[in-house]
């Protein structure tokens, strides 16, 4: 080969390099040409950068490099082409095409159900919701021995909300902010759904009606690659109804639908519907959790499809309050892009049954 190549010779070796058909001898030659001439390097870069753009869906452009100061939060993301496989890191943006699942995913996809009885509480220690755990700055994890980081991240959000709800119901503070105090026959309920409601946004329409529940942005733990958001949406005071019907088997059930907006993640989120029964407050202690049922399912990335979860909880003796919580979670590399999507719930209904008779609901 010549000392200084023609454009065709240079292009030929660059193409061989990109197609991985270059021999070691040719590679040495190409390296020398690039090392000794800036114009050769510029030609190489010109070809390679075109090559890199050919991996992406034509017609779609990146977001601007620098966001304007007043840019709105709701910025639609273009649909990128995915190339390659997901490694152990975050943004699996290398390769492939997006496949959208158009139809609803059946309940058979729900991933796990954790039914806890007091006998099983040692394997999943539900901490007492102590007043001190809710003080700003307090390290919740240090006060919950043996608790996984995953649980404590969720608890930090959820505990404050449920404790506030229980406190509001216990004190009868009908004018508390952040929710509505409701009377439902012999039940009273602290309902945060109106507070969390929002209209259609980010390409997601409510499943029914004009509003849906929007979950807060996820807390992301980069190290463990976990992102999650949890909301206590309702706290139901069942003391009176149970007192008036002693000995009757009481159970509650709830159902809700989940969805998420477009985003940059490869998979849908794992959604959760949790029912928890809380017992009487002991002197010097917070409310004692008695039983917890969590149901989960994996959603898809299609904002047109809503996925439904239902759950039931048989109220144990001593139950005073039932807490309904909703959550969304992402694990692995997707966790770091969790907040490129938004997560929604709708059609939440709650029922209380005594014996075989439905007392309240669906509400």
């Amino acid at each position: 080969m010549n000392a200084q190549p023609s454009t065709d010779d240079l292009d030929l070796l660059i193409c061989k390099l990109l197609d991985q058909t270059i021999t070691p001898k040719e590679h040495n030659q190409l390296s020398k040409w690039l090392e000794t001439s800036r114009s050769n390097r510029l030609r190489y870069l010109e070809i390679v950068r075109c090559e890199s753009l050919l991996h992406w869906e034509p017609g779609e452009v990146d977001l601007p490099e620098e966001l304007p100061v007043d840019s709105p939060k709701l910025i639609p993301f273009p649909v990128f082409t995915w190339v390659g496989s997901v490694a152990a890191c975050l943004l699996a943006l290398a390769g492939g095409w997006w496949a959208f699942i158009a139809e609803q995913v059946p309940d058979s996809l729900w991933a796990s159900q954790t039914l806890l009885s007091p006998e099983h509480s040692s394997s999943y220690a539900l901490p007492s919701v102590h007043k001190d755990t809710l003080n700003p700055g307090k390290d919740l994890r240090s006060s919950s021995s043996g608790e996984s980081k995953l649980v404590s991240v969720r608890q930090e959000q959820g505990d404050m909300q449920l404790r506030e709800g229980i406190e509001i119901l216990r004190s009868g503070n009908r004018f508390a902010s952040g929710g509505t105090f409701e009377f439902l026959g012999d039940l009273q309920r602290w309902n945060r759904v109106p507070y969390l409601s929002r209209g259609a946004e980010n390409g997601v329409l409510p499943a029914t009606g004009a509003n849906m529940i929007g979950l807060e942005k996820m807390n992301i733990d980069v190290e463990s690659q976990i992102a999650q958001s949890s909301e206590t949406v309702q706290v139901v005071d069942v003391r009176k109804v149970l007192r008036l019907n002693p000995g009757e088997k009481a159970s509650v059930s709830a159902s809700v639908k989940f969805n998420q907006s477009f985003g940059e993640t490869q998979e849908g989120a794992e959604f959760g519907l949790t029912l928890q029964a809380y017992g009487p407050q002991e002197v010097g202690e917070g409310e004692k959790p008695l039983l917890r049922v969590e149901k989960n399912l994996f959603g898809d990335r299609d904002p047109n499809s809503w996925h439904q979860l239902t759950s039931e909880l048989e109220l144990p003796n001593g139950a005073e309050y039932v807490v309904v919580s909703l959550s969304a979670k992402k694990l692995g590399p997707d966790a770091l892009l969790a907040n490129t999507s938004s997560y929604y719930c709708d059609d939440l209904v709650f029922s209380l049954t005594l014996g075989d008779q439905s007392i309240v609901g669906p509400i």
Partner: protein
Amino acid sequence: MANESISFEFSQKLVGMQRNLYGFILSLVANRSDAEDVLQETNLILCQKSKEYNPQGNFRSWAFNIARYQVLAYLTTKKRSKIQFSNELVDSLASEEFDTKQYHITQRALQICYELLPEHMREIARLRFKEDMSLKEICKVSGRPIGAISATLYRIRQNLVQCVRIKASQLEIETDGQKI
């Protein structure tokens, strides 16, 4: 770094930078699979360092700098093969200006030029660049010899680069004209 939240703005900047980062990395490692690996490592580092980033600073420079170090680390751990640029050449290539705004224009021009390819070339281009097939796989699918596929890809790349140069200039003029 427990419970560190990545801000929405940072996520957007990072997502918006992906193509530029990938192009930059590919120019240094010249292998798509390697470039994807390095991109993912780079993204991890960027996320881990998100709190160190000054929002008033130049995100591209910061991200590209981290990417460059990741490339060098990757080449080192890969145990230098014969088909690999030297660190000095990598530094030389990395130091060439990478105008990300020009990248957007190039992208648009490439879209136009891609559609202008003759159909038989567009099919080979689709198999190679979109389906990420190797030359051998394309040979099987197309029934053509590997030499012919290689030659076609050579012409495709030359045609695209030539076309993109012209179209990008036109788009730049149009863009400047709109600004006036």
